[in-house]
């Protein structure tokens, strides 16, 4: 595959690995946080850690949109389908996140059946409002199309994600307005990257106790195609932490690590752009304008693991209130505690590794996730469980290298 394989090339990776080994000083360690779940996934899937010297440690950050949604937000989506009787359209990843009352979107979906009120769902008629349905979609445009096809049905799009997925949601709302749709709305859970980074840097583990060594950030590429690199300049200056914006291919990640090591060695704290093939300093002005037209800052938003963060998420502006599911159906956020043994919060802050959690891999598995980090393919726990858990078992590292003759 052109323009993909080039960024996964084994020979280039070996060259970069050698350069990293050479650049890394023998008298110190390097701890870098990859902010984004996309990086976490790539690191695990391609085995990037195997190519790094032991002195370089990667810390998984909170940049997984599904993981940072607190239980109360998933509950809102479920309530919309079960109680308000809407057709809730969600991406696949949030579907399996455990919510309150032993439910998840996928369990609520099973409870509702296909087209509630039909023969097959008679048993749940007492709990479910007529017509409620939960659908998995691949594109937000599918939700809009569904609303157009069936004007009798109230369609709600469960909008999650960082700045990358926000402009499409804004566009969707504008389209719905232009079409005069009266049966389409959005449950807006869009969150902001800089707020999460600030929260990590302000955390006592980093700032006061120093228990979380943090020498720099691998910044998210796709988010930066929208917001540019400028918003990170504050972190570099204020907190003296270098940031390298990097793409999601494994070579991008390795290149970013090399750039960070060089900055640390030189005592620099700059924002550098490894992903120059798509990211500029100012980002996508048009998308930013679209977003600010439709959304405004929430005064406060609850994050899983990071708690209530001021001005860290978006809500739909008053001018578009009729497309805001929270207003239309009067559903309010209610905080719900995470499972007592679940360490998702600490994992999201980078304070703990997935394997440090007592229930990792025993009680909490991808089949029976307790916390959100085990659900999403971008979650740190799921990535470590699915791709990397063999490193926790010493005997397995003795597996032979299998080389196929050319």
């Amino acid at each position, binding site marked *: *595959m052109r323009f*993909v394989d080039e960024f996964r090339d084994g020979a280039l990776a070996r060259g970069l690995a050698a350069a990293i080994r050479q650049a890394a000083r023998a008298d110190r360690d390097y701890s870098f946080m990859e902010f984004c779940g996309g990086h976490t996934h790539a690191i695990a899937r391609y*085995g990037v850690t195997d190519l790094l010297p032991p002195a370089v440690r990667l810390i998984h950050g909170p940049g997984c949109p599904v993981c940072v949604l607190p239980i109360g937000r998933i509950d809102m989506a479920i309530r919309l389908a079960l109680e308000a009787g809407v057709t809730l359209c969600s991406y696949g990843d949030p579907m399996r996140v455990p919510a309150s009352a032993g439910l998840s979107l996928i369990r609520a979906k099973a409870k509702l059946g296909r087209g509630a009120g039909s023969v097959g769902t008679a048993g749940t008629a007492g709990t479910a409002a007529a017509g409620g349905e939960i659908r998995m979609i*691949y594109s937000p445009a599918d939700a809009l199309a569904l609303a157009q096809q069936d004007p009798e049905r109230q369609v709600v799009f469960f909008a999650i994600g960082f700045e990358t997925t926000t402009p499409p949601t804004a566009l969707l709302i504008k389209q719905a307005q232009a079409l005069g749709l009266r049966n389409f709305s959005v449950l807006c859970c869009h969150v902001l990257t800089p707020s999460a980074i600030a929260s990590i840097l302000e955390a006592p583990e980093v700032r006061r106790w120093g228990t979380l060594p943090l020498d720099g950030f691998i910044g998210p590429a796709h988010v930066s195609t929208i917001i540019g690199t400028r918003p990170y300049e504050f972190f570099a200056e204020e907190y003296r932490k270098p940031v390298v914006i990097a793409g999601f291919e*494994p070579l991008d990640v390795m290149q970013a690590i090399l750039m960070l090591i060089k900055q640390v060695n030189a005592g620099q704290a700059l924002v550098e752009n490894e992903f120059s093939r798509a990211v500029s300093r100012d980002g996508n002005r048009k998308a930013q304008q679209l977003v600010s037209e439709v959304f405004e800052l929430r005064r406060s938003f609850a994050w899983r693991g990071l708690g209530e963060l001021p001005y860290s998420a978006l809500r739909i502006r008053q001018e578009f209130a009729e497309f805001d599911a929270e207003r239309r159906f009067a559903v309010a956020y209610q905080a719900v505690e995470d499972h007592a043994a679940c360490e998702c919060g600490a994992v999201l802050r980078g304070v703990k590794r997935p394997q440090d959690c007592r229930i990792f891999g025993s009680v909490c598995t991808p*089949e029976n996730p307790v916390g959100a980090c085990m659900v999403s393919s971008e979650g740190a726990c799921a990535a470590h469980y699915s791709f990397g858990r063999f490193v926790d078992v010493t*005997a*397995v590292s003795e*597996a032979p290298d299998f080389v196929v003759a050319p």
Partner: protein
Amino acid sequence: MNGARKGYVRPLDLRHGAVDMTHGSGGRAMAQLIEELFAKHLGNDFLGQRNDGAVMPIPPGRLVMSTDGHVVSPLFFPGGDIGCLSINGTINDVAVLGATPLYLAAGFILEEGLPLADLRRIVESMARAASEAGVPVVTGDTKVVQKGAGDGVYITTTGVGVVAEGEDFSGDRARAGDQIIVSGSIGEHGMAIMAQRESLGFAAPIVSDTAALHGLIAAMRASGAAIRTLRDPTRGGVATTLNEIARQSGVGMMLQESALPVQAEVAAACEFIGLDPLYVANEGKLLAIVAPEDADKLLAAMRAHPLGQRAALIGSVHADAQHFVQMTTAFGGRRIVDWLTGEQLPRIC
């Protein structure tokens, strides 16, 4: 005049007609559907006995039996349809146990409103697949459910075959040192369905690999290679099937990513949707675990068969108490190739 009045029965309207509840009632309408559609296309001496079951001779050996329900959506897709899929799938399940497939049974659950033209297309496709494979459908059943209670048609096929004494390709026979071979490029069936369902409209359509593998398996057995295990990597793909074998045999496996045969179209489509071809269903591929000294011999025999031309050595078996299937990535790192989690693509076969 004579034709129209023959038996005072009006022929089925196979062009514009549709399945209705009477076709499953046990009455004349059902008898007519069986006669003019199923018996006409699938006909053979055993089906012609017209009993509720069929009586057949069996050659010496141990009996192998397998059953498989087919609920694929859409019913028709590039490279096949639910009809040929239901024949090939069950033949393969019998054949990978080392058996010669002999007979098939087919149960249809039809949804009221299914166009008879679609049903005919499906039955014709089954007849073609059964005839090419040389495995007749000897008995069957038809039920009709109300509109909304099904999705067009579901087909369950059961196959029987015989396997010679001493032949055993069960999944618990992989041993450290054995080699892992796949019979061709992976992920085509699943991506063909996915592309069709999501109207992805790729310029080069991906075609399902549905095929009956008993001929290839016969050629493999004839090579004399010490085959430990055979299995067809359908739902859950190569990754899940290898995990099943690793667990059954109590071993670990190490794959080499760069050795995996994947068509460029499938690789691109997977990349686009965010799927891993290792987890995408195949319907005409098999995995063979073979003694190390016979790997080359088996590979040569497979490549000489039309269904094994792209056969490739993809990994090896080693001792591992954890039964991990691992992979050296093309990038140079290592990772687990885990069991499929959740549901990647529903209703794929």
